[in-house]
């Protein structure tokens, strides 16, 4: 009925989501790729709904990145873009990244 906010605090929040984790590697030799920017987009069945791409994270030297996915819906499109444009951009729907670390392979251009 009533929401509250501590006088000197932030608003309360109502977060619905999961942490997702990826390991990004080269499709050619399996080596980890650093600096890959990962974004997500919720997939809707409705043509009228447009969702923005949300930033998830950037891979570290081991090719690993994790971040918060702000939806509990499962059909999420992820976009993987490497910083040096050495690899092709990959768009793919993944629905289990919140359960375990998902391995993703990028092809060289």
């Amino acid at each position, binding site marked *: 009925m009533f929401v509250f906010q501590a006088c000197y605090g932030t*608003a309360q*929040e109502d977060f619905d989501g999961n942490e997702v984790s990826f390991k990004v590697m080269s499709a050619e030799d399996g080596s980890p790729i650093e600096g890959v920017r990962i974004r997500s987009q919720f997939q809707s069945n409705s043509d009228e709904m447009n969702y923005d791409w949300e930033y*998830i994270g950037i891979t570290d030297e081991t090719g690993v990145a994790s971040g*918060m996915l702000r939806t509990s819906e499962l059909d999420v499109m992820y976009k993987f873009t490497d910083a040096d444009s050495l690899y092709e951009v990959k768009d793919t729907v993944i629905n289990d990244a919140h359960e375990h670390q998902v391995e993703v392979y990028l092809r060289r251009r």
Partner: protein
Amino acid sequence: MDNILRKPLGRLFRWNETKIHELNYLFWECTTRCNLHCRHCGSDCTDDRGEKDMPLEDFLKAVDTIPKESIGKRFTVVLTGGEPLLRKDLETAGREIRRRGMGWGMVSNGWLYDEEKHRQLMSAGMGTLTISLDGLEENHDWMRGRDGSYAKTMKAIELAAKEQRLNFDVVTCVNKRNLKQLQELHDRLASLGVRQWRIFTIIPIGRACHDAELHLSNEEFVELMEFIKHKRDHRESSMNVTYSCEGYLGRYEWEVRQNPHFCHAGINIASVLIDGTISACPNIDREAWGQGNIYRDNLWSVWNEGFKAYRDKSWARRGMCKECKKFRDCQGGGMHNWHGDCHEVINCLYNKTLTQKC
């Protein structure tokens, strides 16, 4: 809500929340270091107050005493200080909090909040953010004790306001110098797309104690109430303007905010302070109202067995509150209004509202 029903419903809600005593809002005073030197700082923070930041693992150990089944959907951890952004491990802290099924947010002065930091913190699951803006450039920098603060804060506000996923608001401490700037501030914030603007006045604690320029006269306070009321009545922009829930406001009680006054400290709110003290809001007198310490007590046990004086405010019927007819709805105002030996409330907003508007 129907005008006749809202008062009893408000009381019933308070009674019920007090009885249930659900912890769903936890402050973490993660540092007392600060890169500004604000005139109104209730915590008296400086660039180096000599206190070390609390290690994240110490805080998490305390948090882990809270049973999973007691962590509700709206449980929010609020990082405060000092300036939280001075810590290097905020992302790790955020992720760890999320892994425990809690939301998290931060109160910041905005100085260090740039695009990269924004991305990092959003990626770590930050869901709520409050940034302070205390006037137009000259007044804000005067209040904050550092030139250039206004420019950096406005950039931070612009960045956060664009982020649709963030529950973001701007807070402003109104004082004698910025009272006449509120309309211009309103217009600037609205033009940046800010959706929530929360206004409060300064209580005489910490450094704010002896600075007369910071405290509004009764007439000025009523002027402020009228400003907020007007903004809420006329909706000049899509921005929601409210007065914070600091105390009972008499005739303005339902005019300047959505909810009736109800101090949730110790009823839904706890805090872990820099030295491990377990309290409610960080601006509450920690010596008078501290309930334990995470370095010797179990946070969850303290929550359940302590905080009795927060839930039963009958002790506050003293001093000017003793015979006050509004006590039933006011309950002595916010707990932060009871300092030192607590023989008298330090700030009565209701009394201020009794002044007629000009």
